Protein backbone atom coordinates (compact mmCIF):
# COMPACT_ATOMS: atom_id res chain seq x y z
CA UNK A 1 0.00 0.00 0.00
CA UNK A 2 1.48 3.34 -1.03
CA UNK A 3 2.14 6.24 1.34
CA UNK A 4 -0.61 8.30 -0.34
CA UNK A 5 -3.15 5.61 0.38
CA UNK A 6 -2.09 5.33 4.01
CA UNK A 7 -2.30 9.09 4.52
CA UNK A 8 -5.70 9.26 2.83
CA UNK A 9 -7.03 6.40 4.98
CA UNK A 10 -5.80 8.04 8.17
CA UNK A 11 -7.25 11.40 7.16
CA UNK A 12 -10.53 9.73 6.20
CA UNK A 13 -10.82 7.89 9.52
CA UNK A 14 -9.94 11.05 11.43
CA UNK A 15 -12.59 13.13 9.69
CA UNK A 16 -15.27 10.47 10.10
CA UNK A 17 -14.39 10.09 13.80
CA UNK A 18 -14.66 13.87 14.22
CA UNK A 19 -18.12 13.82 12.68
CA UNK A 20 -19.27 10.94 14.89
CA UNK A 21 -18.03 12.83 17.94
CA UNK A 22 -20.30 15.81 17.24
CA UNK A 23 -23.14 16.22 19.71
CA UNK A 24 -26.70 16.54 18.31
CA UNK A 25 -26.78 20.33 18.65
CA UNK A 26 -23.56 20.72 16.67
CA UNK A 27 -24.77 18.18 14.11
CA UNK A 28 -27.89 20.31 13.67
CA UNK A 29 -25.69 23.37 13.15
CA UNK A 30 -23.68 21.49 10.53
CA UNK A 31 -26.92 20.60 8.75
CA UNK A 32 -28.07 24.23 8.92
CA UNK A 33 -24.72 25.36 7.54
CA UNK A 34 -24.94 22.96 4.60
CA UNK A 35 -28.51 24.10 3.93
CA UNK A 36 -27.36 27.72 3.92
CA UNK A 37 -24.62 26.93 1.40
CA UNK A 38 -26.95 25.00 -0.91
CA UNK A 39 -29.96 27.34 -0.61
CA UNK A 40 -29.31 29.16 -3.94
CA UNK A 41 -29.23 25.84 -5.81
CA UNK A 42 -32.44 24.58 -4.22
CA UNK A 43 -34.22 27.85 -4.91
CA UNK A 44 -33.01 27.90 -8.51
CA UNK A 45 -34.26 24.35 -9.02
CA UNK A 46 -37.55 25.21 -7.38
CA UNK A 47 -38.01 28.21 -9.72
CA UNK A 48 -37.58 25.94 -12.72
CA UNK A 49 -40.17 23.43 -11.50
CA UNK A 50 -42.57 26.21 -10.48
CA UNK A 51 -42.24 27.80 -13.93
CA UNK A 52 -42.85 24.46 -15.63
CA UNK A 53 -45.87 23.66 -13.44
CA UNK A 54 -47.25 27.15 -13.95
CA UNK A 55 -47.30 27.03 -17.73
CA UNK A 56 -50.93 27.36 -18.72
CA UNK A 57 -52.88 28.56 -21.75
CA UNK A 58 -54.55 31.99 -21.73
CA UNK A 59 -57.96 30.33 -21.51
CA UNK A 60 -56.89 28.33 -18.46
CA UNK A 61 -55.53 31.48 -16.82
CA UNK A 62 -58.74 33.39 -17.46
CA UNK A 63 -60.81 30.58 -16.01
CA UNK A 64 -58.54 30.36 -12.97
CA UNK A 65 -58.74 34.13 -12.51
CA UNK A 66 -62.53 34.11 -12.52
CA UNK A 67 -62.65 31.25 -10.03
CA UNK A 68 -60.17 33.01 -7.75
CA UNK A 69 -62.11 36.30 -7.85
CA UNK A 70 -65.32 34.53 -6.86
CA UNK A 71 -63.54 32.61 -4.12
CA UNK A 72 -61.98 35.85 -2.87
CA UNK A 73 -65.38 37.52 -2.51
CA UNK A 74 -66.76 34.52 -0.62
CA UNK A 75 -63.78 34.44 1.69
CA UNK A 76 -64.05 38.16 2.42
CA UNK A 77 -67.66 37.70 3.45
CA UNK A 78 -66.79 34.70 5.65
CA UNK A 79 -63.82 36.56 7.13
CA UNK A 80 -66.02 39.45 8.24
CA UNK A 81 -68.46 37.05 9.90
CA UNK A 82 -65.60 35.28 11.65
CA UNK A 83 -64.15 38.58 12.87
CA UNK A 84 -67.52 39.46 14.39
CA UNK A 85 -67.73 36.03 16.01
CA UNK A 86 -64.19 36.33 17.33
CA UNK A 87 -64.93 39.69 18.92
CA UNK A 88 -68.04 38.27 20.55
CA UNK A 89 -66.06 35.21 21.73
CA UNK A 90 -63.38 37.40 23.31
CA UNK A 91 -66.02 39.49 25.12
CA UNK A 92 -67.65 36.37 26.51
CA UNK A 93 -64.30 34.87 27.53
CA UNK A 94 -63.42 38.12 29.31
CA UNK A 95 -66.78 38.09 31.05
CA UNK A 96 -66.11 34.56 32.26
CA UNK A 97 -62.54 35.56 33.16
CA UNK A 98 -61.03 33.06 30.69
CA UNK A 99 -57.58 33.78 29.24
CA UNK A 100 -57.80 35.69 25.96
CA UNK A 101 -57.15 33.47 23.00
CA UNK A 102 -54.81 35.07 20.51
CA UNK A 103 -54.73 34.21 16.84
CA UNK A 104 -51.63 32.51 15.42
CA UNK A 105 -48.93 34.54 13.78
CA UNK A 106 -48.21 32.74 10.53
CA UNK A 107 -45.37 32.97 8.04
CA UNK A 108 -46.30 31.65 4.59
CA UNK A 109 -43.72 29.42 2.95
CA UNK A 110 -43.39 27.56 -0.30
CA UNK A 111 -42.21 23.96 -0.56
CA UNK A 112 -38.87 24.09 -2.35
CA UNK A 113 -38.13 20.37 -2.52
CA UNK A 114 -39.19 17.07 -1.10
CA UNK A 115 -36.52 15.06 0.60
CA UNK A 116 -35.06 12.54 -1.84
CA UNK A 117 -34.40 10.00 0.91
CA UNK A 118 -36.53 6.88 0.64
CA UNK A 119 -37.41 6.30 4.28
CA UNK A 120 -37.93 9.75 5.70
CA UNK A 121 -40.79 12.17 5.05
CA UNK A 122 -39.51 15.70 5.04
CA UNK A 123 -39.85 18.77 2.86
CA UNK A 124 -37.73 21.88 2.50
CA UNK A 125 -39.39 25.30 2.66
CA UNK A 126 -38.10 28.66 1.48
CA UNK A 127 -38.20 30.48 4.82
CA UNK A 128 -35.63 30.45 7.59
CA UNK A 129 -34.37 32.34 10.63
CA UNK A 130 -34.33 35.60 8.68
CA UNK A 131 -38.12 35.26 8.35
CA UNK A 132 -38.76 34.39 11.99
CA UNK A 133 -38.83 30.61 11.52
CA UNK A 134 -37.13 28.53 14.17
CA UNK A 135 -36.69 24.90 15.22
CA UNK A 136 -39.75 23.11 16.67
CA UNK A 137 -42.27 25.48 15.07
CA UNK A 138 -45.37 23.75 13.67
CA UNK A 139 -46.24 23.94 9.99
CA UNK A 140 -49.82 23.80 8.77
CA UNK A 141 -52.14 24.67 5.92
CA UNK A 142 -55.73 25.88 5.96
CA UNK A 143 -56.73 22.20 5.97
CA UNK A 144 -54.69 21.07 8.91
CA UNK A 145 -51.36 20.12 10.44
CA UNK A 146 -48.43 19.39 8.15
CA UNK A 147 -45.50 18.86 10.49
CA UNK A 148 -42.75 20.57 12.41
CA UNK A 149 -39.54 22.45 11.63
CA UNK A 150 -36.49 20.40 12.58
CA UNK A 151 -33.56 22.13 10.89
CA UNK A 152 -33.39 25.77 9.94
CA UNK A 153 -30.94 27.86 7.94
CA UNK A 154 -31.04 31.54 7.27
CA UNK A 155 -33.44 31.36 4.32
CA UNK A 156 -34.44 27.73 4.25
CA UNK A 157 -35.79 25.14 6.67
CA UNK A 158 -36.60 21.44 6.81
CA UNK A 159 -40.05 20.33 7.98
CA UNK A 160 -40.66 16.74 9.09
CA UNK A 161 -44.12 15.71 7.94
CA UNK A 162 -46.71 14.09 10.21
CA UNK A 163 -46.52 11.06 7.89
CA UNK A 164 -43.02 10.39 9.25
CA UNK A 165 -42.86 7.81 12.01
CA UNK A 166 -40.69 10.12 14.09
CA UNK A 167 -43.18 12.99 14.12
CA UNK A 168 -45.37 12.39 17.17
CA UNK A 169 -48.28 14.68 17.95
CA UNK A 170 -50.44 14.73 21.09
CA UNK A 171 -54.03 14.63 19.89
CA UNK A 172 -57.60 14.13 20.91
CA UNK A 173 -60.69 12.94 19.12
CA UNK A 174 -63.31 15.66 18.79
CA UNK A 175 -66.50 14.93 20.65
CA UNK A 176 -64.91 12.38 22.99
CA UNK A 177 -62.53 12.34 25.94
CA UNK A 178 -60.06 10.15 24.07
CA UNK A 179 -56.48 11.42 23.95
CA UNK A 180 -53.53 9.74 22.31
CA UNK A 181 -50.38 10.18 20.24
CA UNK A 182 -50.54 10.37 16.45
CA UNK A 183 -47.55 9.37 14.37
CA UNK A 184 -46.81 8.32 10.81
CA UNK A 185 -46.65 4.75 9.62
CA UNK A 186 -43.27 3.57 8.33
CA UNK A 187 -44.56 1.00 5.87
CA UNK A 188 -47.37 2.66 3.93
CA UNK A 189 -46.78 4.21 0.56
CA UNK A 190 -45.57 7.79 0.46
CA UNK A 191 -48.38 8.65 -1.93
CA UNK A 192 -51.16 7.52 0.45
CA UNK A 193 -49.77 7.97 3.95
CA UNK A 194 -51.72 6.79 6.92
CA UNK A 195 -51.29 7.90 10.48
CA UNK A 196 -51.71 5.84 13.60
CA UNK A 197 -53.14 7.08 16.88
CA UNK A 198 -52.02 5.02 19.84
CA UNK A 199 -52.43 5.07 23.62
CA UNK A 200 -56.21 5.23 23.35
CA UNK A 201 -58.38 3.34 25.78
CA UNK A 202 -59.30 -0.16 24.63
CA UNK A 203 -63.00 0.47 24.91
CA UNK A 204 -62.96 3.81 23.10
CA UNK A 205 -66.04 4.12 20.96
CA UNK A 206 -64.53 5.67 17.87
CA UNK A 207 -66.27 5.62 14.54
CA UNK A 208 -65.14 6.36 11.02
CA UNK A 209 -65.10 10.04 10.16
CA UNK A 210 -64.49 11.41 13.65
CA UNK A 211 -62.10 14.33 13.56
CA UNK A 212 -58.71 14.18 15.27
CA UNK A 213 -57.13 17.47 16.35
CA UNK A 214 -54.02 18.53 18.24
CA UNK A 215 -54.59 18.58 21.98
CA UNK A 216 -51.95 21.21 22.76
CA UNK A 217 -50.41 18.97 25.47
CA UNK A 218 -46.68 19.63 25.79
CA UNK A 219 -46.95 23.08 24.24
CA UNK A 220 -45.36 22.08 20.93
CA UNK A 221 -48.44 22.23 18.72
CA UNK A 222 -51.26 24.69 19.47
CA UNK A 223 -54.51 23.01 20.39
CA UNK A 224 -57.29 22.52 17.90
CA UNK A 225 -55.39 22.11 14.62
CA UNK A 226 -57.01 19.36 12.52
CA UNK A 227 -54.77 16.34 11.99
CA UNK A 228 -57.14 14.01 10.17
CA UNK A 229 -60.14 11.75 10.50
CA UNK A 230 -60.51 8.30 12.01
CA UNK A 231 -60.60 5.55 9.39
CA UNK A 232 -60.93 2.55 11.69
CA UNK A 233 -60.38 1.55 15.32
CA UNK A 234 -58.76 -1.60 16.74
CA UNK A 235 -58.69 -2.77 20.33
CA UNK A 236 -55.18 -4.16 20.89
CA UNK A 237 -54.07 -6.17 23.96
CA UNK A 238 -52.73 -3.14 25.84
CA UNK A 239 -54.29 -0.13 24.14
CA UNK A 240 -56.75 1.13 21.58
CA UNK A 241 -55.36 2.09 18.20
CA UNK A 242 -56.96 4.13 15.45
CA UNK A 243 -55.88 4.50 11.84
CA UNK A 244 -56.17 8.16 10.90
CA UNK A 245 -56.29 9.62 7.39
CA UNK A 246 -54.46 12.96 7.26
CA UNK A 247 -56.49 16.12 6.72
CA UNK A 248 -53.86 17.54 4.41
CA UNK A 249 -52.91 15.90 1.11
CA UNK A 250 -49.20 15.65 1.91
CA UNK A 251 -48.21 14.36 -1.53
CA UNK A 252 -49.50 17.50 -3.28
CA UNK A 253 -48.33 20.07 -0.79
CA UNK A 254 -47.04 23.29 -2.34
CA UNK A 255 -47.46 25.95 0.32
CA UNK A 256 -47.55 25.88 4.09
CA UNK A 257 -47.79 28.29 6.99
CA UNK A 258 -45.29 28.17 9.83
CA UNK A 259 -46.73 29.11 13.22
CA UNK A 260 -44.16 31.55 14.58
CA UNK A 261 -46.14 32.75 17.58
CA UNK A 262 -49.32 34.40 18.64
CA UNK A 263 -50.57 37.86 17.69
Amino acid at each position, binding site marked *: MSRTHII*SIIAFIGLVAALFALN*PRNSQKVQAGVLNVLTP*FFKAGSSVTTFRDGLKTLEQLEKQNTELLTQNKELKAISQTLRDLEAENQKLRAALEYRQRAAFKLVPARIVTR*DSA*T*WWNTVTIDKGTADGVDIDMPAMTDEGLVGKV*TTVGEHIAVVVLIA*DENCKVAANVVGTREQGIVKGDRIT*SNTMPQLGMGFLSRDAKLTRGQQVVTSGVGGVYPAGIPIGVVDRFEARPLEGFAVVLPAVNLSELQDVFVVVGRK
Partner: protein
Amino acid sequence: MPAVIFFFFLVGAVLLSMIGQHFIPPFPAPWFTGARVLLMPVFLFYGALAMPFSGMLGLAFIAGFFWDALTLPVVPSLLPGGEPLFEIPLGWSIILYAVLGSIMNGMRPWFRRGRWEIHCLLSGVFTALIVVAEYLMIALKRIEESGFLFPGIVWQRALGSGLAAMLLAPLVFFLLNTVGRLIGFEPHPERETLRR
Protein backbone atom coordinates in the same frame (compact mmCIF):
# COMPACT_ATOMS: atom_id res chain seq x y z
CA MET B 1 -2.95 17.41 -13.38
CA PRO B 2 -5.91 16.36 -15.62
CA ALA B 3 -6.73 13.71 -13.00
CA VAL B 4 -6.92 16.38 -10.28
CA ILE B 5 -9.11 18.61 -12.43
CA PHE B 6 -11.36 15.65 -13.23
CA PHE B 7 -11.58 14.84 -9.51
CA PHE B 8 -12.88 18.32 -8.75
CA PHE B 9 -15.25 18.07 -11.67
CA LEU B 10 -16.57 14.80 -10.22
CA VAL B 11 -17.05 16.47 -6.82
CA GLY B 12 -19.18 19.14 -8.49
CA ALA B 13 -21.10 16.53 -10.47
CA VAL B 14 -21.82 14.48 -7.33
CA LEU B 15 -23.10 17.56 -5.49
CA LEU B 16 -25.22 18.78 -8.40
CA SER B 17 -26.71 15.33 -8.92
CA MET B 18 -27.55 15.19 -5.21
CA ILE B 19 -29.40 18.49 -5.47
CA GLY B 20 -31.02 17.48 -8.76
CA GLN B 21 -32.43 14.24 -7.40
CA HIS B 22 -34.43 16.24 -4.85
CA PHE B 23 -36.54 17.50 -7.75
CA ILE B 24 -37.21 14.08 -9.27
CA PRO B 25 -40.55 12.80 -7.94
CA PRO B 26 -40.87 9.25 -6.61
CA PHE B 27 -42.12 6.44 -8.82
CA PRO B 28 -45.89 6.71 -9.16
CA ALA B 29 -47.96 3.89 -7.69
CA PRO B 30 -48.12 0.99 -8.36
CA TRP B 31 -44.63 1.03 -9.90
CA PHE B 32 -42.20 0.14 -7.13
CA THR B 33 -44.41 1.90 -4.58
CA GLY B 34 -42.75 5.24 -4.04
CA ALA B 35 -39.14 4.31 -4.86
CA ARG B 36 -36.85 7.28 -5.49
CA VAL B 37 -34.55 7.87 -8.45
CA LEU B 38 -31.14 8.19 -6.79
CA LEU B 39 -28.84 9.94 -9.22
CA MET B 40 -25.94 10.74 -6.93
CA PRO B 41 -24.72 7.17 -6.32
CA VAL B 42 -24.37 6.64 -10.09
CA PHE B 43 -21.97 9.58 -10.31
CA LEU B 44 -20.19 8.51 -7.14
CA PHE B 45 -19.61 4.96 -8.38
CA TYR B 46 -18.24 6.24 -11.69
CA GLY B 47 -15.80 8.30 -9.65
CA ALA B 48 -14.93 5.23 -7.57
CA LEU B 49 -13.98 3.44 -10.78
CA ALA B 50 -12.22 6.30 -12.51
CA MET B 51 -10.22 7.65 -9.60
CA PRO B 52 -7.45 5.99 -7.62
CA PHE B 53 -8.21 4.79 -4.08
CA SER B 54 -7.49 8.10 -2.35
CA GLY B 55 -9.69 9.95 -4.84
CA MET B 56 -12.48 7.46 -4.24
CA LEU B 57 -12.22 8.04 -0.47
CA GLY B 58 -12.43 11.78 -1.02
CA LEU B 59 -15.53 11.43 -3.16
CA ALA B 60 -17.14 9.01 -0.69
CA PHE B 61 -16.50 11.42 2.16
CA ILE B 62 -17.97 14.41 0.35
CA ALA B 63 -20.96 12.47 -0.97
CA GLY B 64 -21.69 10.84 2.38
CA PHE B 65 -21.27 14.05 4.34
CA PHE B 66 -23.58 16.11 2.13
CA TRP B 67 -26.12 13.28 1.86
CA ASP B 68 -26.37 12.99 5.64
CA ALA B 69 -26.43 16.76 6.09
CA LEU B 70 -29.30 17.10 3.63
CA THR B 71 -31.41 14.07 4.44
CA LEU B 72 -30.80 12.76 7.95
CA PRO B 73 -33.77 13.94 9.92
CA VAL B 74 -33.68 15.26 13.43
CA VAL B 75 -36.17 13.47 15.67
CA PRO B 76 -38.35 16.30 16.95
CA SER B 77 -38.38 16.69 20.70
CA LEU B 78 -41.66 16.07 22.45
CA LEU B 79 -41.31 19.27 24.47
CA PRO B 80 -40.56 22.73 23.04
CA GLY B 81 -36.89 23.63 23.25
CA GLY B 82 -35.95 20.05 24.07
CA GLU B 83 -32.67 18.45 23.05
CA PRO B 84 -32.63 17.27 19.43
CA LEU B 85 -31.94 13.65 18.72
CA PHE B 86 -30.26 12.12 15.69
CA GLU B 87 -31.56 8.64 15.22
CA ILE B 88 -28.64 7.82 12.96
CA PRO B 89 -25.38 9.69 13.53
CA LEU B 90 -24.16 12.19 10.99
CA GLY B 91 -21.47 10.49 8.96
CA TRP B 92 -22.74 6.92 8.70
CA SER B 93 -23.34 7.31 4.97
CA ILE B 94 -19.67 8.18 4.53
CA ILE B 95 -18.75 4.73 5.82
CA LEU B 96 -21.38 3.05 3.64
CA TYR B 97 -20.23 4.86 0.51
CA ALA B 98 -16.57 4.23 1.34
CA VAL B 99 -17.19 0.50 1.70
CA LEU B 100 -19.18 0.25 -1.54
CA GLY B 101 -16.76 2.60 -3.27
CA SER B 102 -13.82 0.43 -2.21
CA ILE B 103 -15.46 -2.62 -3.75
CA MET B 104 -16.06 -0.62 -6.93
CA ASN B 105 -12.50 0.64 -6.87
CA GLY B 106 -11.35 -2.96 -6.82
CA MET B 107 -12.97 -3.36 -10.27
CA ARG B 108 -10.89 -0.48 -11.62
CA PRO B 109 -8.61 -2.66 -13.78
CA TRP B 110 -11.62 -3.70 -15.89
CA PHE B 111 -12.85 -0.12 -16.05
CA ARG B 112 -9.44 1.06 -17.26
CA ARG B 113 -9.80 -1.41 -20.11
CA GLY B 114 -13.09 0.19 -21.12
CA ARG B 115 -15.60 -2.24 -19.63
CA TRP B 116 -18.72 -0.07 -19.13
CA GLU B 117 -20.84 -2.99 -17.90
CA ILE B 118 -19.14 -2.93 -14.51
CA HIS B 119 -20.37 0.58 -13.77
CA CYS B 120 -23.85 -0.11 -15.16
CA LEU B 121 -24.50 -3.33 -13.26
CA LEU B 122 -22.84 -2.47 -9.98
CA SER B 123 -24.41 1.01 -9.81
CA GLY B 124 -27.79 -0.67 -9.84
CA VAL B 125 -26.87 -3.33 -7.30
CA PHE B 126 -25.12 -0.94 -4.93
CA THR B 127 -27.87 1.70 -5.15
CA ALA B 128 -30.37 -0.98 -4.13
CA LEU B 129 -28.03 -1.97 -1.29
CA ILE B 130 -27.91 1.65 -0.11
CA VAL B 131 -31.72 1.74 0.13
CA VAL B 132 -31.80 -1.55 2.05
CA ALA B 133 -28.96 -0.45 4.35
CA GLU B 134 -30.77 2.80 5.18
CA TYR B 135 -33.91 0.87 6.04
CA LEU B 136 -32.00 -1.62 8.19
CA MET B 137 -30.44 1.25 10.15
CA ILE B 138 -33.89 2.68 10.90
CA ALA B 139 -35.42 -0.71 11.64
CA LEU B 140 -32.68 -1.62 14.12
CA LYS B 141 -32.89 1.79 15.81
CA ARG B 142 -36.65 1.51 16.23
CA ILE B 143 -36.66 -2.16 17.20
CA GLU B 144 -37.55 -1.42 20.82
CA GLU B 145 -40.50 0.73 19.90
CA SER B 146 -42.12 -1.29 17.15
CA GLY B 147 -40.22 -4.57 16.85
CA PHE B 148 -38.22 -5.56 13.79
CA LEU B 149 -40.31 -4.78 10.70
CA PHE B 150 -39.10 -5.77 7.25
CA PRO B 151 -42.05 -5.61 4.86
CA GLY B 152 -41.95 -6.41 1.15
CA ILE B 153 -42.14 -2.73 0.26
CA VAL B 154 -38.46 -2.41 1.22
CA TRP B 155 -37.48 -4.76 -1.60
CA GLN B 156 -39.80 -2.99 -4.03
CA ARG B 157 -38.23 0.37 -3.31
CA ALA B 158 -34.71 -1.01 -3.40
CA LEU B 159 -35.43 -2.70 -6.72
CA GLY B 160 -36.98 0.47 -8.15
CA SER B 161 -34.05 2.65 -7.15
CA GLY B 162 -31.57 0.03 -8.35
CA LEU B 163 -33.23 -0.34 -11.73
CA ALA B 164 -33.40 3.40 -12.21
CA ALA B 165 -29.68 3.66 -11.41
CA MET B 166 -28.87 0.86 -13.83
CA LEU B 167 -30.82 2.56 -16.61
CA LEU B 168 -29.17 5.92 -16.00
CA ALA B 169 -25.67 4.52 -15.60
CA PRO B 170 -24.75 4.23 -19.34
CA LEU B 171 -25.81 7.84 -19.89
CA VAL B 172 -23.76 9.04 -16.94
CA PHE B 173 -20.85 6.86 -18.07
CA PHE B 174 -20.89 8.36 -21.55
CA LEU B 175 -21.30 11.93 -20.25
CA LEU B 176 -18.47 11.71 -17.73
CA ASN B 177 -16.19 9.90 -20.19
CA THR B 178 -16.72 12.72 -22.68
CA VAL B 179 -16.01 15.42 -20.12
CA GLY B 180 -12.98 13.52 -18.86
CA ARG B 181 -11.48 13.36 -22.35
CA LEU B 182 -12.18 17.06 -22.92
CA ILE B 183 -10.24 17.84 -19.76
CA GLY B 184 -7.40 15.60 -20.92
CA PHE B 185 -8.11 12.72 -18.54
CA GLU B 186 -8.30 9.31 -20.22
CA PRO B 187 -10.65 7.07 -18.20
CA HIS B 188 -9.74 3.90 -20.14
CA PRO B 189 -5.99 4.07 -20.77
CA GLU B 190 -5.77 0.30 -21.23
CA ARG B 191 -8.57 0.01 -23.75
CA GLU B 192 -6.07 -0.75 -26.49
CA THR B 193 -4.81 -3.69 -24.42
CA LEU B 194 -8.30 -5.19 -24.49
CA ARG B 195 -8.61 -4.73 -28.24
CA ARG B 196 -5.33 -6.55 -28.81
